[in-house]
Each structure stands twice: as C-alpha cells, then as structure tokens.
C-alpha cells in the first residue's frame, strides 16, 4: 500500500484544492481465479471482516470473497448501527467485549472513517424485577472488564429529560449505562474491511452467486458459481439470513429460521437524542443518526420471512411504543422503514464452528445482533479457519449445542426453541 492510498486530513485538503481528481476506487474488481486457499461465501460485514483478519492476522493471501450481489448489500447495510458489549452470559460476554475493543481500534487499523461514535447506551428499566436484572447484568459486564453504571430516575432525568417518566403502565425507574457503547456508520464498516482486505490481495468478487458446494469423500473441494467453478481448500460460509440455502448446497440442515425485523427512520432533525436508548418494555430502541434521522425499531414480526419487508401490525406496535416512551418523536414525520432477514437460532446466540464436512466452516445465526459483532466475528472466524481451533473469545458458539443441550446461551431466558427470541 503506497502512501498515496492512505486517507488523512492532509489528503482531504489537497484533493479539495485540486478538484478531487486524485481519488481512486477503494478496491479492485478482479476476475475469479481457478482456485483459492480460502473461499468465503458472502460479501457482507462478517465475510469481509473474515477475509481481512485472515490476511492480517494469519498471513493468508490467496483468498476470495464471493458475493451474490454487491458488497455490503445485505444486513450490514440494513441494520440500526448499534455497537455495545453489554451481554450477560459467559460465551457472549467475552465475545462482545472482544468485539468492542476491536471497534475502538478499527478506524486506525483500517485507515478508514467508520464514524464510530461512543455516545453511550442506556437500557431503561421500568420495575423492580427489571432493575434487579439490570444490576446483575451490570455486575457481569464489570466482571468481564467492560464499563457499566446504574442510573436511577433523577440521574437519568438530568441526562435524558425528554423521556416519559410517568407512563402509567411502564414508568421509568432508571437505566443501565454503558458509556463505551454507541453507533458506527454501517456501510463504512463494510467498505473499510473490503478496502483493507483488497490491499492485502484478497479478491472481492461481486455478482458471483454460489450455486453449489463441491464435496468429495466428506471433504470440501470447491464451489460452483454464476461465474464458473472455483476450487478451494477451505470454504467459509458467512451468508447471514441466507445461511440455510447456502448450507443446503452441502447437504446440511441448520438450526436456523429466517425472520423479518423492521426498522424505521424519521426525517432529519437537529441533534436531540445524544445516546442510544433501549427500553425493557417492547424491545424498543432509538438513536439519532449523524444525518439527523431518528432510527428506531422493536420486535421481530415473528413469522418466517425472506421478503425484507414487514407488515403493518408490528409497525403500529412500534409507533405506539415509541410514542409512549419518547412522546416528542410523534412530532417528527416517518421517512421510511425497511426489513432485514434475521438468521434466528433457537437460543438467540450465534454459531462460529466447523461443520461435519471437512474444510467447510460456518458463521451464522446472528439473529438481530450481527452488526456489533462484525469485527470480532471476522477475527474469530478467521482464527477458526486458519488454525482449526476456536478463538479464545468464541469457544462456545457451537453448532451442536442444540442437540446436546450443553452450552446453550439464552440471554432472554425464554427457552432454546424457535420463535421465542
């Protein structure tokens, strides 16, 4: 990488004064080669991060990322951009802690502005039971080495005075605050990892749908694609909501149902909400984007869907809930809404593991929490692919935990069955 390829304040100034004619594409558009050491299926945040860390941490160079559409066109471009490390259970706790640390160094590491904004997340609670759970969670987070504070009503009011503290059904008692949490510019995360991987020589191949996975004698040998067959020593699946279809090409049936989660954004407003705020009532969350739009959402629609759009009942529910908790939002006009395809596992936690087929690796089941996981998912998946051993931060994301019942990670405590998370 030459110095001219680096972004800097000086470079922005120079380009601005010379007509912005010196910018070049962030990555190449290569033809697929006939064979690679590692083929990654899926050019989203997790697939691109995996390619980047395979190259950076493990010295591999002969890598391809195969993407059906365009880079970052799936869930990494369709989420609500929240980054946090406030998980409770062993397994998740150390993983998301690792992820937040990677987020904090990512922009320097990638030389790319991901607009990482550690504005803090407030998890609002409404009653004694939720308060006790929040205190327990805070202690768990602190034990993990991350930051957590409990704010009670009066402290919270000085921070976010505009909430409805006296809702009859869901009065606000306080909140769990994690100051290091926040938001990042979702597209830029994909682009940053793509550019970083490309600079290491990784081939990012778009418009290249995988149509088959070649297995010989229980070992993966390559893939069939829309742009011809490609041989590979190892094949790594990072296809998010489409994981079931991709895995089926290798004869695997996954413990995954794909569901729709809707999100909403209002017209751009002046800065009004400084934090990410979530509510124990209604799975509700809201933050303000750098463009000024209020970004919010709540539950899944709770039926299987690949439509990438939801239905009116959950939209109504979300509007009612946000109006009840943040009444000022009702003055803003809704600009648009969208739906993402969520690869839901029975216990609501992800899978980073070997498959029964030698050389075929699986990264899936991110449910509605994949964005914050992006760097650690890539780092841990790369570690597994390169060394055939799980990364220390991702030892419990096992594919067979549902069959055995050992090591289930059910953060919500609702049971390890489909349609409960």
């Amino acid at each position, binding site marked *: 990488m030459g110095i001219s390829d680096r972004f800097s304040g000086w470079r922005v100034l120079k380009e601005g004064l010379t007509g912005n004619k010196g910018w070049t594409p962030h990555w190449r558009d290569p033809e697929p080669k006939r064979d690679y050491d590692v083929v990654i299926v899926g050019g989203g945040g997790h697939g691109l991060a995996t390619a980047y860390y395979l190259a950076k941490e493990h010295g591999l160079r002969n890598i391809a990322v195969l993407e059906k559409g365009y880079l970052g066109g799936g869930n990494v471009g369709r989420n609500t951009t929240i980054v946090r490390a406030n998980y409770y259970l062993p397994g998740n706790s150390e993983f998301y802690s690792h992820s937040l640390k990677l987020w904090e160094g990512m922009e320097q590491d990638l030389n790319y502005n991901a607009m990482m904004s550690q504005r803090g997340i407030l998890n609002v609670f409404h009653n004694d039971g939720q308060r006790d759970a929040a205190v327990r969670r805070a202690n768990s987070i602190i034990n993990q080495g991350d930051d957590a504070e409990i704010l009670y009503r009066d402290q919270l009011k000085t921070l976010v005075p505009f909430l409805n503290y006296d809702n009859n059904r869901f009065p606000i008692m306080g909140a769990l605050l994690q100051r290091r949490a926040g938001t990042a510019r979702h597209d830029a995360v994909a682009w940053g990892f793509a550019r970083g991987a490309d600079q290491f020589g990784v081939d990012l191949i778009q418009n290249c749908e995988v149509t088959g996975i070649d297995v010989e004698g229980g070992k993966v040998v390559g893939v069939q694609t829309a742009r011809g067959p490609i041989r590979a020593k190892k094949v790594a699946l990072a296809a998010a909501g489409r994981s079931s279809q991709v895995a089926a090409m290798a004869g695997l049936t996954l413990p995954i149902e794909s569901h729709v989660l809707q999100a909403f954004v209002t017209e751009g407003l002046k800065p009004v909400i400084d934090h990410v705020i979530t509510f124990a009532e209604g799975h509700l969350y809201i933050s303000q984007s750098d463009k000024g739009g209020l970004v919010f959402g709540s539950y899944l629609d709770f039926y299987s869907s690949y439509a990438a759009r939801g*239905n009116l009942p959950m939209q109504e529910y979300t509007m009612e809930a946000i109006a009840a908790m943040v009444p000022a939002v009702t003055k803003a006009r809704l600009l648009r809404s969208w739906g993402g395809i969520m690869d839901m596992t029975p216990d609501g936690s992800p899978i980073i593991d070997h498959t029964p087929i030698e050389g075929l690796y699986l990264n899936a089941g991110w449910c509605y929490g994949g964005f914050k996981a992006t760097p650690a998912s890539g780092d841990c998946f790369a570690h597994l692919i390169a060394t055939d051993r799980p990364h220390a931060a991702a030892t419990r994301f096992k594919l067979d935990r549902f*069959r055995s019942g050992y090591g289930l990670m059910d953060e919500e405590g609702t049971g390890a069955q489909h349609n409960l998370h």
Partner: protein
Amino acid sequence: MRITCPLCGARDRREFTYKGAALPVPALEAGVAEWDAHVHLRDNPAGPLEELWQHDMGCGAWLKVTRNTATHEMLGVALAQDAGLAIKEGQP
C-alpha cells in the same frame, strides 16, 4: 397479511399467532437425532412453507397455512386436524 380461517373467513393477521413450521411430531420413543431435527433443525425455505398459526383472537383453531416466505403470499389454509397434524393419544 390476511389469513382465511376455514371457520371464520378472511381475517387480519393480528387475530393469529405464529406457531412455527408445521412438522410431524416424532414418536415418543424416537431417538435424539429425530427429536433434535424436530425441535431445532429447519429447512427454512425461501418460498412455500407449511406452518402452524393459531386463530387465538378468533375461534381458537390451529391452522396449517402454506405461505410463501419470499412474498408473504398465502397459498392455502386448512384446519390442522384435517391436515393430519392433530395431537394423537400418547403424544406430548
């Protein structure tokens, strides 16, 4: 989405609760692999899917609905008991 309940007619999706994929229940003495498949593993198709909905805000009937998960189009509805999905004696 609207679902045409065989007993009540076409009703709004709000009246129904999703109960997951419509799968035959294994025999009690079936092994771990069969029960694991029933409880956890899913074909998860992007297309027609047979699934269970309950008309719990209406007549209460359990329905077997065939629905296209890629478009949300309703392709068919039957009472679960007529579709051979009724719980039999001795089943959980």
